[in-house]
């Protein structure tokens, strides 16, 4: 069916910038796949290369059982939703939605029927005769989706489909998008720089940096087991605490205190290793009583997050952030102990920043 594979895919721009650098990737049929990364990481270029809007410099790309590397975009049987939606301002919603059918020479009456049906399915009832300029941002986004749906492609490509919506609408549209993809079961690749969006929507996420994939995995995997410090700091709404530490016996010394070596890394480190200790703020607890295997410090800043609070603790000059429940919020300046959930803490290689993992990592 519509599995997407890239084989040693390279996209080099004039001037020698490699936006995509030797990529091997397989996106399963029906999968909702996210390309996540900071701007300039090559994620959009990869998407546009899949679409055929950029020609690959090297390597091959297949969609389903067809090698599409040299096919023009119109022959690849893909649909794309652009960041700015690219709705034609001079056409009505109906004409916009049915534009792909017009190109396929579907008779007018039948393509308008399809447009009306698709529009109804995407909560665009009664807007079919309007111009895009007369619609709200959310409606425009759904028209763009409807146009993609109407072309009945084997692959959907979304380029930051939610970024032009305001925050509240974005949540609504996110849920909508996920349900739409579930219902249609069409292989979907979407690009985003928003890690929360990727975590919420995708079946699997590829995190990219400088044209290379840093990690591919389910949202859970990339959140809990980031492959390196880049992924660790990029994923998560509050960045992971990453501090240099030294292995000493069964413990690592970090921020002037000593915490146990995470079980997942225990057999891979030895005494005296320079490592980076990582712990998500969500996996740290605040204790006003002394606790063994914890980090002592004082709460310097408390930022309210609603039902929780983000507390910044000064532990001998090292700043550690943790998320505490609203009931456990410490006083500003209060002394206390940061207690990690040991099985959720991670160690990264001090030099390369790669995750240190016990069982030989079968690339998640």
């Amino acid at each position, binding site marked *: 069916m519509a599995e997407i594979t890239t084989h040693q895919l390279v996209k080099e721009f*004039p001037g020698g910038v490699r936006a995509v650098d030797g990529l091997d990737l397989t996106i399963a049929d029906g999968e909702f796949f996210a390309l996540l990364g900071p701007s300039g990481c090559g994620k959009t270029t990869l998407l546009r290369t899949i*679409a*055929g*809007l950029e020609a690959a410099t090297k390597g091959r790309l297949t969609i389903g059982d067809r090698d599409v590397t040299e096919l*023009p*975009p*119109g*022959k*690849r049987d*893909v*649909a*794309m939703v*652009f*960041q*700015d*939606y*690219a709705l*034609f*301002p*001079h*056409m009505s919603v109906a004409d916009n939605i049915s*534009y*792909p059918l*017009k*190109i*396929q020479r579907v008779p007018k009456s039948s393509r308008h029927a399809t447009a009306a049906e698709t529009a109804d399915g995407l909560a665009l009832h009664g807007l079919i005769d309007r111009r895009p300029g007369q619609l709200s941002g959310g409606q425009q986004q759904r028209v763009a989706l409807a*146009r993609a749906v109407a*072309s009945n492609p084997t692959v959907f*490509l979304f380029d930051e489909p939610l970024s032009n919506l305001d925050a509240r609408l974005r949540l609504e549209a996110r849920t909508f998008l996920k349900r739409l993809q579930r219902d249609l079961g069409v292989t979907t690749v979407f690009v985003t720089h928003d890690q929360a969006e990727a975590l919420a929507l995708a079946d699997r996420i590829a995190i990219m940096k400088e044209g290379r994939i840093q990690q591919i995995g389910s949202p859970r995997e990339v959140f809990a087991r980031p492959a390196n410090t880049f992924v660790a700091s990029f994923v998560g709404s509050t960045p992971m605490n990453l501090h240099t530490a030294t292995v000493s016996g069964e413990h690592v010394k970090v921020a002037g205190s000593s915490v146990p070596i995470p079980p997942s890394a225990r057999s891979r480190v030895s005494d005296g290793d320079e490592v980076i200790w990582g712990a998500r703020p969500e996996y740290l607890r605040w204790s006003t009583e002394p606790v063994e295997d914890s980090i002592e410090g004082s709460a310097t800043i408390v930022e309210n997050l609603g039902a929780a609070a983000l507390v910044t603790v000064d532990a001998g000059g090292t700043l550690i952030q943790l998320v505490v429940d609203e009931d456990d919020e410490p006083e500003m300046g209060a002394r206390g102990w940061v207690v990690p959930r040991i099985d959720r803490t991670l160690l990264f290689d001090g030099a390369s920043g790669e995750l240190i993992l016990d069982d030989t990592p079968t690339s998640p």
Partner: protein
Amino acid sequence: MTTTHETTPMKHRDAVGIVRTTLAKIGRYVFIGFVIVFFALPVLWLVTAPFDQAPALRLSVPEFTLQNFQVLIDNPYALRSMWNSVIIAVGTMAIVLVLAALAAYALSRVRVPGRDILLYSLLLLSSIVTGTAAMVPIFVLITELQLIDTYLAVVLVMAGGLLPAAIFILKDFMDNTPKSYEESARVYGASPLQILRHVVVPIARPGLATIAVWGVVQVWGNFLIPFILLRSPEQFPGAVVMFTFYTEGGQPNLALISAFSLLFSIPVVLLYLFVSRRYGFRFYGGIKS
């Protein structure tokens, strides 16, 4: 209260200030009045004389009549020259519009080597090789091509002069239009020509309209090029005929001239109104060379 004590000197200073601002205000209005008179005075004749029973050079409140326009219709050259102006203006505009649109689109969307240098040198060229500066070689060229006294000569020379600026303006317009429109059509399988027809031309319509209006206005009033390239009076456009009306010997026919100058001015004023209503005249200001 100590306040009365303190405000007295202030009041004096205020008075000086008031006198000064009043003087400034008066100066300002005198100047604005002068500007209005300077710019309105010549134009007044244009709107009164055509409707005067006995048009004279002196400004006067007209005794209303449309008789002068009858004189204009009876003149063998007047309406004909207006029609000639239409042919030349529309012909030039059509060539400029089509060629500039094609070139601007290609230059905006396709990475042609040396594109920016090409554009800037063209623009530079069109601003230094003006009709005035190049009238001699243009005249000789047209003579050698045996195109003297043809509309084609006028149209081609004018189009050559207007094209660089037209390409530049349209390219700027296309550069500001997101590429995703075309890319989106392309993803759905539209061919390049379909993309042009379905997407690019409709979206570029305001830019194209601007260039069309601009081209017509430029050509309509141009005097020099038809003046040197055309010979026979029945070929002359309005701009040249207007000139012959008042320079050819004898007493100028004021009835004819007044009606003709008004009629000949109306198209550009209408086009100006059209553009200024749609885009604000500041825009028009930016593009009239």
